[in-house]
């Protein structure tokens, strides 16, 4: 068994042996634990892109417990159907991805913006920097948005993304995933993450997935195949619930 605090990468935990605070500076309380840590050696790009100084718990301000509001003018209903953005239908396996956005008490987050983006069925993004020699699909861009409903539910129609190689190490492949961006009701709840598909053989080899050291927490990133989301004669369904932390202590207006 591993714990969320284990370091499997053999690198000392610099945060644990941090410098003494300067005189005159109040000792910092323990910050809330967020997963994963910034620094995970197996994901090499974290080396120069991870803070080394301890995070500072800010005094409660008026700004961070609140967040932007998005409305029907911001999101078109068709934005949630990634298979309907072009003249033709994209290639690949059509899927439905849905679930609920909840706060840490399990309450639905209503009317919240959900953004998503992903590779196409061949594992290619329509991005200049993506040099993977797999075909682009003129009928698939791979970006969508929606607002959660009164129960906190979201639903996208898309195609199953392909796995793709990346330069992190020899024979490195990302498991199939969909990028998600969420806001919640507070700046503190903002989350960018990735959803994975059940049973992917690449899980054990992927440093990004494994940067979350706690097994239970890793499981929270994997959608479940779901017959209730599956549409007969049309598309398999995956269900993925998202829980946002860091809700404000001060309740915002109920929208």
């Amino acid at each position, binding site marked *: 068994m591993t714990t969320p605090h284990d370091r499997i990468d053999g690198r000392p935990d610099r945060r644990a042996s941090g410098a003494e605070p300067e005189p005159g500076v109040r000792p910092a309380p323990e910050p809330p634990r967020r997963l994963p840590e910034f620094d995970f*050696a197996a994901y090499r790009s974290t080396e120069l892109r*991870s803070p080394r100084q301890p995070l500072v718990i800010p005094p409660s*301000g008026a700004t961070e417990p609140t967040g932007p*509001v998005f409305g029907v003018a*911001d999101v078109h209903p068709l934005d949630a159907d990634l298979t309907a953005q072009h003249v033709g239908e994209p290639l690949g396996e059509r899927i439905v991805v849905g679930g609920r956005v909840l706060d840490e008490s399990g309450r639905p987050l209503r009317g919240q913006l959900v953004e998503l983006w992903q590779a196409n069925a061949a594992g290619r993004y329509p991005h200049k920097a993506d040099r993977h020699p797999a075909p682009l699909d003129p009928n698939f861009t*791979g970006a969508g948005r929606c607002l959660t409903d009164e129960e906190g539910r979201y639903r996208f129609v898309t195609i199953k993304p392909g796995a793709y190689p990346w330069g992190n190490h020899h024979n490195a492949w990302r498991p199939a995933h969909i990028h998600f961006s969420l806001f919640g009701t507070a700046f503190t709840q903002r989350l960018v993450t990735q959803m994975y598909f059940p049973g992917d053989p690449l899980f054990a080899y992927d440093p990004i*997935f494994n940067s979350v050291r706690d097994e239970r927490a890793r499981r929270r990133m994997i959608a479940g195949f779901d017959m209730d989301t599956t549409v007969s004669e049309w598309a398999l369904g995956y269900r993925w*619930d998202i829980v946002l932390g860091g809700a404000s202590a001060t309740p915002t207006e109920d929208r």
Partner: protein
Amino acid sequence: MSTRPMDTSPMNTWPIGAEGDTPNPDGGLTPSQTVGPFFGYALPFAGGPDLVPPHTPGAIRVHGTVYDGAGVPVPDAVVEIWQADATGRIPRAPGSFARDGVTFTGWGRAAVDRLGRYAFSTVRPGAPGADANPYLAMSVFARGMLRRVVTRVYFPEDDRHADPLFALVPASRHETLIAVREESGSYRFDVHIQGEQETVFLAV
């Protein structure tokens, strides 16, 4: 690139994706994952960096460069700000994606360019309370960052001793939280993810 030995062995073994697997079985917080390198066609949007149209009366320009721990500009970061309006009120109006040029939504998003630079057009926020200075709340996401970093952009005209955050931060790091006013009137706020000048990041 690092020359660290590459480890392609399985990092863990556990049963995954068994039939009947339920999503998020324990109801815990969904972990963060990196925004990756390929958000550029998905997250940026027209008008994203312009909370108010540039060059309108009262508009300010807040810009800067995102640097990594080697002092090299990060060409694949995305920066977001969230702020009070000019009177210190928290905006409650939707419309950030459908900018109408009038409504102030308080939120903006700017992808950096190939030189790591971002720029917002916004208003200087009013003070959020009697005992705090005005600030922009800022998030930075990038490939290689498993979580966002969060900071505050303060303005150089305000007395830092009036704001409680500065008492929690060594004086040697105060400058990393304060934008620099340039001759043009723009405010420059560079973000150093790591290194000697590492920006003060907040635990939220």
